[in-house]
């Protein structure tokens, strides 16, 4: 069985190679699906554009689909992701928006870990009793809350109630330091400004809480299930018999093993979190890729942006694939039974 550090490179390399066909497939599918209705696509995507834009679009659309795809794919690899209706390149817009979304998603993931996992442990500990039912009601209400309803309630009622801001990344429009990473909290910290860091964090709380609440069920449910699997095992029983406190038994001995399975959650939640950002970022005016997606797709009556929408779909799929890869590697590292070769 190979578990030397050098074998880990093979393990990761294999996973990366397996990704290539998936990524190509993602691009093919996205392109095909967004070009499904060839007769209508130009009018659908450029409803307010001038005759020349429509004409250009139709010139492209009248070529065979395969030619269009090859053209698109080559451009994509060259970093030319198309232009929006105003002629601005899509790629820089997406590159600028991505870090803000990453920050929001990571903050939500953090909340899911520090709140969702202990809740799962509690539910497993009191399985079938009222604490278990209460936890279930909590995460199922998150599951059942439409993202926009949660976001709107948080922005309109929860924000003023708790004194938290609910729009943008900072209270002021222009910040007096350069944004290297485009992640508000990290930029403020890099600039060494404590008030701005606090301001950035307070702006991050509400959208992250909404995003985490809606996706909480996956983490809690997975933790609960793996804890229920681990708790009756002999080693937990002997830890108890040694006289360890219940807290120590649950959180050190049992949870440690249960968490190995819970890492796979990372891959599963990536899709949910990213879908959530489309509405959450729009409601909280968070300048990330979710808001970009909302606008590109023509949400709220905005002018749709065909190239941008396709690019966003591809980016979201790549993000899910990357999250699955990280979860896969993490699982391989944490579970000693996985052979790296």
């Amino acid at each position, binding site marked *: 069985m190979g578990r030397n550090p050098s074998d880990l490179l093979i393990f990761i390399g294999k996973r990366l190679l397996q990704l290539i*066909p*998936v990524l190509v*497939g*993602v691009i093919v*599918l*996205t392109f095909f*699906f*967004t*070009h*499904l*209705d060839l007769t*209508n*696509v130009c009018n*659908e*995507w450029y409803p307010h554009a001038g005759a020349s834009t429509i004409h250009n679009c139709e010139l492209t659309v009248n070529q065979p689909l395969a030619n269009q795809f090859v053209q698109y794919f080559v451009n994509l690899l060259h970093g030319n992701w198309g232009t929006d209706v105003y002629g601005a390149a899509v790629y820089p817009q997406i590159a600028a928006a991505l870090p803000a979304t990453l920050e929001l998603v990571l903050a939500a993931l953090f909340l899911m870990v520090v709140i969702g996992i202990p809740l799962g442990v509690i539910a497993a500990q009191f*399985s*079938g009793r009222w604490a278990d*039912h209460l936890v*279930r*009601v909590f995460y*199922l*209400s998150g*599951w*059942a*809350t*439409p*993202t*926009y*309803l949660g976001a*709107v309630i948080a922005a*309109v009622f929860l924000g003023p109630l708790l004194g938290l801001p609910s729009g943008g990344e900072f209270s002021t429009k222009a910040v007096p330091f350069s944004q290297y990473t485009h992640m508000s909290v990290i930029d403020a910290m890099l600039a060494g400004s404590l008030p701005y860091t606090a301001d950035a964090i307070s702006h991050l709380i509400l959208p992250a809480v909404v995003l985490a609440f809606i996706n909480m069920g996956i983490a809690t*449910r997975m933790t609960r*299930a793996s804890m*229920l*699997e681990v*708790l*009756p095992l002999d080693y937990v029983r002997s830890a108890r018999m040694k006289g360890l406190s219940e807290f120590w038994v649950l959180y050190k001995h049992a949870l440690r093993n249960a968490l190995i399975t819970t890492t796979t959650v990372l891959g599963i939640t990536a*899709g*949910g979190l*990213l*879908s959530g950002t*489309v*509405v959450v970022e729009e409601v909280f005016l968070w300048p990330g890729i979710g808001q970009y*997606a*909302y606008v590109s*797709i*023509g*949400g*709220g*009556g905005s002018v*749709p942006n065909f190239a941008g*929408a*396709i690019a*966003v*779909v591809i980016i*979201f*799929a790549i993000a*899910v*694939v990357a999250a*699955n890869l990280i979860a896969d590697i993490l699982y391989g590292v944490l579970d000693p039974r996985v052979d790296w070769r």
Partner: protein
Amino acid sequence: MAPTPPASRPDSSARVVWRVLRSNPLSLGGFALIVLIGVVAAVVAIDPHLLIPYGPQQITGAYHARPSWAHPFGTDGNSFDVYSNVLLALPLDLGIGILIAGSALLGGGTLGLIAGFFDRPGTLGGALSVVIMRITDIFLSFPSLILALAITRALGLGVGPTVLAIGLTWWPYYVRLVRGEVLAVKGLPYVVAARASGVSEWRILARHVIRNVLEPVVVFFTLDIGTVLVTYSTIGFIGVASKYPSAQPEWGAMLAFYQSSGAINAYPWEVFAPGAAIFVTVFAFSLLGDGLRDILDPRTRRAFVRSSAGREPPAEVPATALPSGTVPPSAPANDLGAPA
């Protein structure tokens, strides 16, 4: 055959479901809510006038009225009755949830059966199952909301294109689920025994495999109806699926309209009514499905059987999934819920 004691008699699916409901008050509540919602939806679909006092776009003369007996959820800026609109949207939203999840179950389920049952390498079925699983993996990489949004946009606005778009993105999870179940069932002794005694492959598939795969898939379907509903109404909220006010209201579109017209601070009931309708419907399906999932997840099932039946686990649980009489009581517990 000696009369078996009642304790070891294999349970029927209905009995298992009933035991879950009895042991889990939340699931029972969810079930009751679903029945209620279903009855209301049926009544609205058959004869709206029994429950709905006003038409969807009927001018009532009361503008932004607070909730009252005449207008349980108040009225909006057009003086339309919010309660009537919320109720009129119920059959549409519920129907869309069942339609999309149902076609994903049929389409994805069929592909999953093929990929799981005919997966012997070197045969036509083997090649087919590899192709199916590769394509499924690609589809599973998309967050379905964003892909559905893009497809809707390309197909054209409206309810039909949106349903088609979500349907196109929804089936892959069923492929993976059904394939995992089929692979697990396929190796069980009773399937091997059937094959050894000369039963044809198609007959094994129809009579032994499908029947036992059905149960977990139907449970997932229950949970899934709610997820579809949330996704559809999100697309409605973004404004790509349907418009409001309209003769056929839809919850997501209602919410988007009321929220964008700035009504939430002054007239919160307008935003809450359709929002609460979605929440209650999805919550009901989730309550039921979440409890049922406990018996399908191999990790929680053991704990569930222990706590609700108070008997030793191994003999009983696999029996719930197997036709009576075909299993020796010592059949090993298999992992029904584990996707391979």
